[in-house]
């Protein structure tokens, strides 16, 4: 059994069919590759074939997945039949910095945990509050409010067999000046951390130093590369910076950017990391190509260092 198992963070947009019973006929209707991206049966098979045996879903998937499959349990059974398990779900703890939003933020977090449990997942990677623009800079008290919400959700999650992992975006109101303050204000027994390798590098953290400092808090990863580390405040604090007007990509497949991912894998070996690692392809024009490219890089460059 390897130490690291690989999953994909779900960045597929809506997939309208469970399974297409008339694939050839559907293809011939307009003879395009749409047929290859229209049912979960094939999406999950692509994952399994490329060795990504976990999927981390996102809350924005639920509005389509649940009516399509009927229930979280039905989706999980369908995925399991194809060799893929649901490892967890992302969560955004909107406005957790606001003291008067404590109850709502905790309620929403607990509901997300309940949903993950129904999917059979064990991870809830959680963005601690909303974007910096329109919200930041946060006061020290507001950072503590975030920490209280994370601890409370973390307590509920732990009781239900789910690990919550703080997941910071480079444009979040929790940002470089208070990123570590939030981590250190949360209870290590209840609140873990999901390193999104590209996001924290763009934020301004040094990936290897950060992992070395917090290795005992790390529950899982969002592994992706970037060629845009250490962006200035003017970018990180801008309005809606995640999708650039000119199509500039913040995120690349492992090996296509500039991060020292081999160095990270040497540290994973040093600290004997065990668990799931989700690959993220946000911004990719071709998720299937990105998945295959990533698998090649993992097998030839990273897994030989630590598997």
């Amino acid at each position: 059994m390897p130490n690291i198992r690989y999953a994909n963070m779900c960045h597929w947009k809506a997939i309208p069919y469970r399974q297409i019973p008339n694939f050839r006929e559907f293809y011939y209707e307009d003879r395009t590759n749409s047929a290859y991206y229209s049912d979960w049966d094939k999406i999950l098979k692509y994952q399994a074939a490329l060795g990504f045996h976990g999927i981390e879903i996102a809350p924005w998937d639920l509005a389509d997945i649940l009516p399509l499959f009927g229930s979280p349990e039905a989706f999980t059974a369908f995925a399991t039949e194809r060799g893929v398990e649901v490892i967890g779900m992302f969560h955004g703890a909107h406005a957790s910095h606001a003291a008067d939003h404590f109850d709502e933020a905790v309620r929403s977090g607990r509901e997300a945990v309940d949903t993950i449990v129904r999917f059979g997942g064990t991870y809830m990677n959680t963005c601690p509050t909303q974007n910096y623009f329109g919200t930041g800079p946060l006061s020290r008290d507001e950072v503590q409010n975030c920490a209280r919400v994370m601890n409370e959700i973390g307590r509920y999650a732990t009781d239900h067999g789910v690990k919550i992992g703080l997941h910071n975006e480079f444009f979040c109101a929790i940002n470089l000046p208070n990123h570590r303050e939030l981590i250190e204000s949360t209870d290590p027994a209840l609140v873990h951390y999901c390193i999104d390798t590209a996001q924290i590098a763009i934020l301004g953290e040094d990936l290897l130093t950060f992992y070395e400092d917090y290795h005992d808090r790390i529950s899982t990863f969002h592994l992706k590369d970037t060629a845009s580390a250490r962006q200035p405040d003017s970018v990180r604090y801008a309005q809606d910076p995640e999708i650039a007007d000119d199509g500039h990509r913040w995120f690349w497949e492992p090996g296509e950017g500039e991060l020292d991912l081999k160095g990270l894998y040497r540290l994973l070996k040093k600290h004997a990391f065990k668990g799931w690692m989700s690959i993220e392809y946000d911004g990719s024009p071709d998720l299937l190509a990105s998945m295959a490219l990533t698998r090649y890089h993992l097998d030839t460059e990273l897994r030989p260092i630590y598997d």
Partner: protein
Amino acid sequence: MNTNEIAISLDLINRHYQEPNRNRFESRYFWEELYPMLATSGFRAIEIPYELVWQFGGRSGVPMNRYCVNTKYGSAAAYRKTLAASGIDRVSGVTFDPNLFMRNGNLDFFFGASGHFAGEALAHAADLGADYLAISPSPCYGRAAHHHPDLESKLDVFTQRTVDLLGGLATKAEGLGVTLVLRHEYWSLFRGARILALLDALPASVKLDCDTASLHVAGLSAADFLTAHIARIGCVHLTDTNFVDTQGIWKTANPEFPETRATQVFRDPGTGSVDLAGIAAVLTRLGYAGPVTASARQTRDPFRALLRTRALLQRIQN
């Protein structure tokens, strides 16, 4: 019918479903490259689907709600100037679909969010100088039934709340000089003749949309529908299809993607079974002078769809 006046709906860009290169659709540059292509294809008017989802995700490059337009352009007026500079003279209409808000068993949430954001869509339509707001009066039946297994027993309540919502919207629309139009989807709670009862319960200013493919899917003749209801038609959508629903697909959770046999329900105009030339002739014979919008939703290739649609309209014109 002057086909040069026909608008093209921006729903020809497949924003929500997976396909290679879909990521382009979220950046501003894509749309600003698209507008001159629309004009080059002979379309000088566009219809915009009003979609909140781009605001919630901070994806304001997609110009489909007030937040996004204000974020990227500062105001609707500045956006219209950008369009004009690209050869798009006007926004003919805005559409609004409440499916996004049918996500739990709380009808207060559904009607509260739908009412609020439909009002925002209406105000945005007015700011854009649009002729109409075409609203889907219900979510998909199957989606509603998923969250409300007792939906049939709630239909009276649902209908009354819909009447209240649309009645309030109609009053605002009259004040803004925008025509409120009810869409008539085959998957609606108000499908078939139910749409007429709903219309009767609303102010006379509220009109009907005629979506030619939706009627075909339901087994209805668009020509007959137009002839019977021409005085109440406020908008015509020229859409095409090869699909006729004989298996109750309308009541499934994803009715535009028939689960028993996958098919592209909405074909590029001119490539399906709907007699669009015949419908254009009916509109001319009936003296219809209201908005007409071509839609290539679900197209596999928007740029081919643009040219296919223009080729169809040229055939109709000649």
